[in-house]
């Protein structure tokens, strides 16, 4: 197991390198001057050049990359052009908030998805199955950013039940697990949960359905197991794959929450990213994408390792 772990980690390194190159290049393909957005509109060319030099943007690309990666391994992701604050701090704070949101969405989505999927898989080709399938297709088909707006209008503006934006009365830094804060989570988390509910339900349905047609299920009945026992076996068989799908979904939730975070003004990584894009804040853009992508890579790694740990069929050496 240990050597499996090591090998997986080793395999991650080139991917991480590739990710860093892409993140770096991403901002190089960007047209226009990154400093435009933060200079006063009537700043002179000379002032701009000085600023550019101050940010090291006047050096050749490979040099910029080397400097960037060098700083990076020391935990320094540069400073935001727009705010001057260290990117690392900004990104980690935001990723924490996104994680909170993504995890909440996962907490909503996964149990519902699993339950619905199992139900549909077990009652395959019945009206229950069709109902769940319809529900999950609807879930993956709805543009969630639009759903978010609709929910805000209904539950915040018209009914006034839930807040429409923000991470609680005191902002994300004063986050606490009380109702005053958690009610801020509800709408964005629910909105974000809709797609993974659909995906998890479909996955689990297919898994459960497939496993139920396997020979060993007959063998289980043949040795006198009850329905509940058989379902336990099915669940155990589906667990590894389902978990890995859910792990990846968590990654997608984190990386894909940008639209929802903009709609709900949630101070997460997506919100940060959209600010970075509109302010053409390159270091921030780089940093955010890099951290999210690396997080996703790590998530993949964890998923793989967990999958290997719970699924005896996977080669662990």
């Amino acid at each position: 197991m240990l050597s499996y772990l090591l090998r997986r980690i080793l395999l991650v390194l080139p991917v991480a390198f590739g990710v860093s190159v892409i993140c770096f290049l991403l901002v190089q393909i960007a047209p226009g001057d990154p400093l435009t957005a933060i200079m006063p509109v009537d700043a002179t060319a000379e002032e701009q050049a000085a600023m550019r030099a101050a940010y090291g943007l006047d050096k050749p690309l490979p040099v910029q990359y080397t400097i960037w990666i060098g700083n990076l391994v020391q935990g320094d992701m540069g400073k935001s052009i727009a705010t001057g604050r260290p990117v690392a701090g900004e990104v980690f704070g935001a990723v924490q908030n996104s994680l909170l949101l993504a995890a909440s969405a996962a907490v909503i989505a996964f149990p519902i998805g699993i339950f619905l999927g199992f139900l549909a898989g077990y009652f395959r080709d019945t009206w229950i199955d069709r109902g769940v399938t319809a529900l999950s297709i609807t879930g993956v088909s709805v543009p969630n950013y639009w759903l978010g707006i609709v929910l805000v209008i209904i539950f915040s503006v018209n009914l006034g039940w839930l807040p429409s934006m923000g991470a609680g009365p005191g902002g994300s830094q004063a986050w606490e697990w009380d109702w005053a804060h958690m009610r801020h989570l509800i709408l964005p988390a629910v909105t974000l949960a809709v797609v993974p509910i659909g995906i998890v339900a479909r996955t689990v349905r297919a898994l459960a359905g497939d496993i139920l047609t396997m020979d060993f299920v007959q063998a289980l009945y043949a040795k006198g197991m009850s329905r509940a026992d058989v379902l336990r076996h099915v669940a155990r068989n589906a667990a590894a794959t389902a978990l890995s799908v859910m792990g990846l979904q968590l990654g997608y939730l984190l990386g894909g929450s940008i639209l929802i975070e903009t709609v709900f003004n949630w101070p997460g990584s997506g919100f940060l990213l959209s600010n970075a894009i509109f302010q053409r804040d390159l270091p921030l853009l780089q940093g955010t994408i890099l951290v999210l992508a690396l997080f996703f890579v790590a998530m993949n790694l964890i998923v793989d390792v967990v999958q290997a740990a719970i699924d005896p069929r996977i080669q662990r050496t």
Partner: protein
Amino acid sequence: MSATDLYAPTKDKGGPAQPLISVRGLKKYFPVRGGILGRTQAQVQAVDGVSFEVAKGETLGIVGESGCGKSTTAKLLIGLTEKDAGEIVFDGFALGPRLSLKELRKGVQMVFQDSYATLNPRMTIEASVAFGAKVQGLDNPEARARKLMERVGLDPARFAHRYPHELSGGQRQRVNIARALAMSPRLVVLDEAVSALDKSVEAQVLNLLSDLRKEFGLTYIFISHDLNVVRYISDRILVMYLGEVVEIAPVDSIWERQAHPYTRSLFSAMPSMDPDNRTKEPPLAGDPPNPINPPSGCRFHTRCRFASEVCKSKVPVLGGLAVNAGHRVACHLYDAQSGHPKAGQGIPA
């Protein structure tokens, strides 16, 4: 027009005495990757120094336990798997500069075990049969295909435009045979070609194979694990164990006397067919060992009743029996110089 008209195999070159195919020291190791860096950690010694030859018009049967390298040998013969070492000589020409792979494949064709998997599910029967002829640039491939289909007992009018899943197993195996013959090969390698068929259908296909052999003067290499079938169709039998040839002999000779202890066990493992004389004791214990780390010396020594110290270290060579030089066996018991306590005595009958 008889079916024979369209059958124009490549010209015989070396005359009847020249073996149609001879194989020397054929070797194939498959790497097993693993470890932290995914480097090759071990090798499956699937085929390790196999040599034999097949005379023109002869049928050679190959038997052995699962995983002993029968299919790999077959694929090596036709170049589907690249050999690590060894030489393949087809009618006097070694595969290499003088004989290209494409030419070799014109002379050697193969029928696989799984009749369904070997047919492209998106292709009609006719197209599948005609494909090889088309590739080899033979003229009028469709007509050839139809004639051959007729010859193997499939009415072209009814079957030409069908897809594999619309056929029964026996019919599909006929298609496979027709496809192999479409290129007018001289040697057909049949890898478990009848194993998946029901007994009654198997008999039909075996009849067909015998007919075709006579009609077209084919040479067969027939791989099977059913000794009865091998015996029925073959002239000589080659026994493999863990990638090596342990015994090769004319069928009657081996039926009378299985010289190698492994061959003996294999034969004793056949169900008896006599209710009054059922098998008493399993001739071999356990499963065949893993070809990743085959035992040293004689690879069979771990399961052999007659094994002695030499067998662990010394690799036996294939040598003719005293009674019959055409019956060759790789066992220290038959080699007077081997140093085995019972060297030269053979196994008791």
